[in-house]
């Protein structure tokens, strides 16, 4: 009660004070209002711009860690030397499954002894071939384990080129940096280099939308297994 009384008593005093200095106050008030609005706007812009910077520039840098392949591999040299271009190493097995990344057994024919003078070659032969260890290649195109993809259906039946999805990797002379998503553990190539997900080439991204897009463009979406009952489980398992 006492507190209440004090306040109620003070209110008239304050209003009295206000009234006693009307000109000064009225001059200042609009300026102070502009300042507040300016600060608010400024902060809004700072927040806005800052988050854009974070979202577009900082976030991608934080999201991906940079890893190097255990061996710097030169596709161009190999494609030139082997007989069957890509299929010399990335072939279909007898049962129709795709071999993917070759194992040492495929390399040993030529690389039993050191070829050339590069440090990578020495490491490959001495540390992997000689010791019978497989090279832990980082696979740019590895899909999550819950995704099933049949190379045979696309390459053999759909007659697609490797380049359509994998780009011109066969012409590369060095292994580029492998960017690993810190959350999922998969390669940046799946989402694509562009953090917004925009793509220019068919091989820029490997998300499900990209599968769907191609199926739609080639008009396979109306007669393919994906549209039948239980179609989800053709690719997701």
């Amino acid at each position, binding site marked *: 009660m006492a507190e209440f009384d004090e306040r109620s008593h003070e209110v008239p005093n304050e209003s009295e004070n206000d009234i006693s200095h009307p000109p000064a106050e009225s001059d200042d008030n609009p300026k102070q209002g502009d300042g507040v609005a300016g600060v608010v706007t*400024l*902060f809004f812009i700072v*927040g806005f711009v800052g988050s*854009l910077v974070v979202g577009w520039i900082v976030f991608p840098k934080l999201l991906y860690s940079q890893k190097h392949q255990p061996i710097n591999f030169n596709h161009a040299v190999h494609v030139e030397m082997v007989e069957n271009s890509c299929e010399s190493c990335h072939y279909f097995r007898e049962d129709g499954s795709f071999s993917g990344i070759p194992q040492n057994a495929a390399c040993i024919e030529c690389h039993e002894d050191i070829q050339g003078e590069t440090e990578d070659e020495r490491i490959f032969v001495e540390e992997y071939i000689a010791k019978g260890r497989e090279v832990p290649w980082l696979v740019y195109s590895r899909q999550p384990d*819950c995704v099933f993809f049949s190379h045979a259906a696309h390459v053999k039946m759909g007659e697609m080129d490797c380049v359509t999805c994998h780009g011109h990797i066969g012409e590369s002379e060095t292994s580029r940096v492998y960017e690993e998503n810190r959350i999922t553990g998969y390669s940046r190539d799946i*989402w694509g280099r562009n953090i917004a997900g925009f793509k220019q080439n068919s091989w820029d991204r490997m998300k499900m939308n990209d599968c769907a897009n191609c199926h739609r463009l080639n008009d396979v979406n109306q007669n393919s297994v994906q549209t039948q009952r239980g179609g989800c489980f053709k690719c997701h398992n």
Partner: protein
Amino acid sequence: MKIDRRSFLALTAGGTVGTALTPLPWKLTDDISIWSQNWPWTPVPPGGEATHVNSTCTLCPAACGITVRKIDQRAVKIEGMAGHPVNDGGICILGVSGLQLLYGPSRVKTPLKRVGDRGAGHWQPISWDQAVAEVAQKLGELREKGEGHTVAAICGSDRGTLPQLFSRLLTVYGSPNFFALPTIHDTYAMTLGLMQGGNPQAGFDVENTDYLLSFGSGILEGWGAPVRMFRANSRWRSGYGKVVQVEARLSTTAAKADRWMPVSPGSEAALAMGLAHVILREKLYQRDFIKHHTEGFNEWQKGVLAGYAPDAVAAVSGVPAAEIEALAREFARARRPLAICGRGQGNTPGSLAESMAVHALNALVGNLQRPGGVWAMPEIEYIDWAEAEMDALAVAGLQQDRLDGAGSDGFPYAKYLPNRLVEAVNSGQGYPLQALLVSGANPCYSLADAAAVQKAIAAVPFVVSFSSFMDETAVNADLILPNHTNLERYEDVPTPLGLTRPIIGLSRPVVAPQFNTRHTGDVVIQIARAIGGTVGSAFPWPTYEACLQMTLAGAWGPLNRDGFWEVPGFQPADWAHAFETASGKFEFTNAAVTSLALSEPIVLPGDEKAFPLLLMPFDSMRLTNGWVGNPPFMTKAVDDTVLKGDDVLVELNPQTASSLGLSQGQAAELQTPVGAARVRVNLFEGVRPGVVAMPTGLGHTAFDEFIAGKGVNYNMLAGPVADPASGLDAAWGIRAKLTKA
């Protein structure tokens, strides 16, 4: 410039709007969903090249063909081999679970030497050279001292090159004490030997039978080759035939049969004779066969007509006389009737009298050597090694009696009596056993009265186990010389018992040996050579594989290609040529048969007053009770009315339970003259009042944490009963007492 609350709100608002215009929220949502769908700690098998290897499963005697799917060097799936004579693409739960044995933690990874007390589990890894040298040295010493006959070997079976190498080793070394673990097939072989002559195995043409009369055989519990029997049963179920199950308990087989005839346990032989009585009295037998191809019929008929009238049999078996008569007529009038015996999976040899009575039923209806009947299956004699040279020590050792008395006057037809070996060691009869080799068998678990077996093994100064797994017998050994598992080694598998197609199966390496194990065949050869002299020279092969290849000769190629080899164009001999008895006919009785104590009853151990109940085992497809442990995949499939947590449930009729004051799930103390165990009670009206039914295959104490400690081993409570006629274990239960815990 004044920074206040509103400024921060503005900053946040700007940040929110800005963030919404960046890919961050959408990208994060996507990443988190991928992460949550592929938890990084979930093990994912590596991808690779898929290949398939054809082999033969040796986890049970059925010897099914298997096709193992591999990804690179790892076996990932075991499937039934399409087109195989036993299982044609099917597979049982044990076969499927075989990978858990290959990759599981119960493997013995290197030769081990005991360093602490027996059974304490303290081992020292040793090299193979040392392991072989130690065994050879010990055996060499015993032989030099003239004690070669005190060495025994126990194998799971005596068929195939690996057991035969052990048998040969003991022979040239100078010991008569080679053992295999007998089953119903030993009793069947004895039955056919006595009634049909020669040395055939019984084959059952279940594929063509249209009326199966089963005396307790668990055709859905793993009798014979399970996949084959399940398939035959499916055909009968789809209208092709009829199944009558004579069994004390409502087993799965009984529940699925066309008719279940609950009998007083132990009265099966009498019931078979009662059926024979009706068939004889009403002259329903196959006259042509009886007249032209049998001997001793009249004499046998006299006995059956005199002693097994339906009324008398009804009093013993509890089956009404009218039902006996009706069943006999139905059986005799069926087109291709077949009567079989061997309780459950047939792992206990059982009563010879019962087997002969059941076989006589088949003879009465003339269903021998015919489609749907019993066929005498000759062994494929491919193991034809040069006779080994014997030195004086070997000859002297072999003149000693076998410790179990098998083949002696008391048990002239028995080949191996492991229960009597245990008894001899424990009671000090005969000579003391100095060394024991165990391969492909786990007697400390699977023989009746397992505690007595363990005691006997503890009394043997030198025990060597060749087990791939740390089983109950290996735990009690001095040395473990681990064999490759069935998926890592070559081994020949002769015609599975009961099959009507003579084949040889080949078990072969699907994956490279995972550990520092060695093929027991190689180890036997190396031990023999280290002993030297005539023992060594009896083993001219550099390796087991070379031995196998030479032994199989022309079959080796097809075996490697297809996984099995079949005798081309096999047909059962006709009646005129099938019987190798003195008369050349089927003999219902003869001098050898009448000399046997076939009418003596089988008395179960235990006093009826102290142990008022009967404990009976039952087998299940989901629990293996052989020499391997139950893989966890199988244990997962066991009902919680059988195993709840780590407690076994025994089946009890509600009537018996209420008289004992026991209710569903209640804990109780189960006592037999042999042992005692804590169990829980499962009320089940399919079991007779006064009977306690207990699953086999539980209660392992060795292997690993996933196999051991689940339930109780029936064999720790059971005791063997020597069949008065054969000497083989014929116990079908034991007297017991159940009290509230």
